[in-house]
């Protein structure tokens, strides 16, 4: 049943080349003096990295991105974990609601979510439109499945009922049980959800661009501005983006010993 060695090597080599060449090329491009006329870079330099990282806007956008990613991941963790636990132990029938919510979060394209939020909330006098608040809410909505899936999987993999009964028979309240008994047992799930949300929001461009525009510049917005203005500095920024996504994915694989993408509810930020 195994594939012929020749074909297997050919297919895997082509796959590896397709996936690696753009990333490696961007990395080398960012440290080349010039690489648009000759087969090999004309020289190596760290000038573009120095130039782009010493700008004030670099630190500001990086800070904004860290802030919004962290806030989204924390808010979702606090909102989703207790809910998923309650649904698991007291109300398993309600899980279908969260499955539908996950499917909608994946299905509704960012452009359409942005349009619907602008159209609806621009008529409502809340401090939302054109502020980072609406971006936070939209990012939470977008990345909900990334938090819910790992937490729900973690809950499925332990004996929640026995743990809860043991804790309650010793006099623990519902909240104490969650915090002291359940949470330590599902830490890998919560942590990988946290990291998945973080990296999704860190790479988020569509919602930021359409909901807040220039009022709250994040790292991907800064990167897109540079692609039209200075390619070599933009390539340094692209390498940083790849690096963040790469580190987060490896962290998740390391924490859970499993693949980072929850089957059936993947990808955002396209």
């Amino acid at each position, binding site marked *: 049943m195994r594939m012929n060695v020749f074909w297997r090597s050919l297919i895997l080599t082509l796959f590896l080349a*397709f996936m690696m060449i753009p990333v490696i090329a961007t990395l080398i491009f960012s440290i080349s003096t010039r690489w648009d006329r000759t087969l090999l870079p004309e020289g190596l330099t760290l000038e573009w990295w120095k130039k782009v990282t010493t700008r004030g806007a670099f630190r500001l956008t990086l800070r904004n991105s860290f802030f919004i990613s962290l806030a989204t991941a924390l808010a979702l963790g606090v909102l989703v974990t207790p809910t998923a636990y309650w649904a698991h132990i007291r109300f398993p029938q309600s899980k279908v609601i969260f499955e539908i919510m996950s*499917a909608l979060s994946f299905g509704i394209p960012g452009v359409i979510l942005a349009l619907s939020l602008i159209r609806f909330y621009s008529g409502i006098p809340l401090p939302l439109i054109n502020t980072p608040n609406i971006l936070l809410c939209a990012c939470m909505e977008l990345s909900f499945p990334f938090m819910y899936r790992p937490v729900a999987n973690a809950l499925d993999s332990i004996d929640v009922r026995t743990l809860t009964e043991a804790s309650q028979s010793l006099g623990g309240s519902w909240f104490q049980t969650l915090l002291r008994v359940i949470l330590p047992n599902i830490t890998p799930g919560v942590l990988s959800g946290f990291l998945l949300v973080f990296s999704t929001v860190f790479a988020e461009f569509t919602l930021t661009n359409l909901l807040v525009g220039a009022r709250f510049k994040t790292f991907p917005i800064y990167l897109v501005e540079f692609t039209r203005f200075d390619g070599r500095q933009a390539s340094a920024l*692209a390498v940083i983006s790849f690096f963040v996504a790469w580190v987060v994915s490896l962290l998740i694989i390391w924490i859970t010993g499993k693949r980072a993408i929850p089957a059936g509810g*993947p990808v955002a930020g396209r």
Partner: protein
Amino acid sequence: MEAQSINILQIKISRKWSAWIPLLPLIIFSIGFQIIPVVSLVISSFTGKQGITLVNYQRAFTPFILDAFCNSLRLSITTALLGVVFGAIVAYAIISSPKKYVQDALIALADVTTNFGGAPLAFAFIVTLGSTGIITLVLKSVGIFLYPNFRIYSITGLALAYLYFQLPLMIMLILPSLLGLKKEWWEAAINLGANNLKYWRFVALPILVPSLLSSFFILFANSFGAYATAWTLTGPDVNIVTVQIAALIRGEVQLEIGLADALAVVSLSIVLLCVGGYLWLANRARRSQT
């Protein structure tokens, strides 16, 4: 006996309305920031100055908008189809590799690159295949001139960039099903006189069809809703639906908010149909495998 009584107790609790209370914050959040805005978008797309109307949809019937939908559909079908076929082949090559570390490394690569997308990816493709990109230069040095026949800033270039995230996604989606093919089935087929081709045609493929089809749907939806990659790579040059909707939101063209609503509702219907198809098929595939 005791376990039974606890079960009965829990069912009683869950039937009580108070069991809903801890679920409410999340549900209300989702209703407030997803359901209500989207439903109101659908309603307003059917609303004009004189009440219920289809005028917003009629306005969408211009050659320009129809072209945008054609391009989006073509792009999504092409990249989903290529993603499904090549992704499945690569995934099969990965699991048939005899070395465990090769398998692990390639699966980790697919896992990580599924997260690469949007602006940095688009830029990486400009560096690689742009008019002075490195592959362009390499090919030029051996006498193959990519430009001006091929442009990375075109819909073909966009399809190539989309494949970069479609391919690893497909690998991650299909791996569990491929690993579910039992060696005994192959042995049984061979013992009964089948060759490899017949095994694939009559045994393996029919088992894989639901997973392949459901993956196609998710890849299609993934590509149809994509915006950041297209915007960074081609700007307003390539006419696809998400770019048009975004342009209407930013008010770059004459502000026609009713038109934006109608375009959004049509796109949303297409994408949600795909997600629904995916869920239905994935559910069936899961049931038939267990």
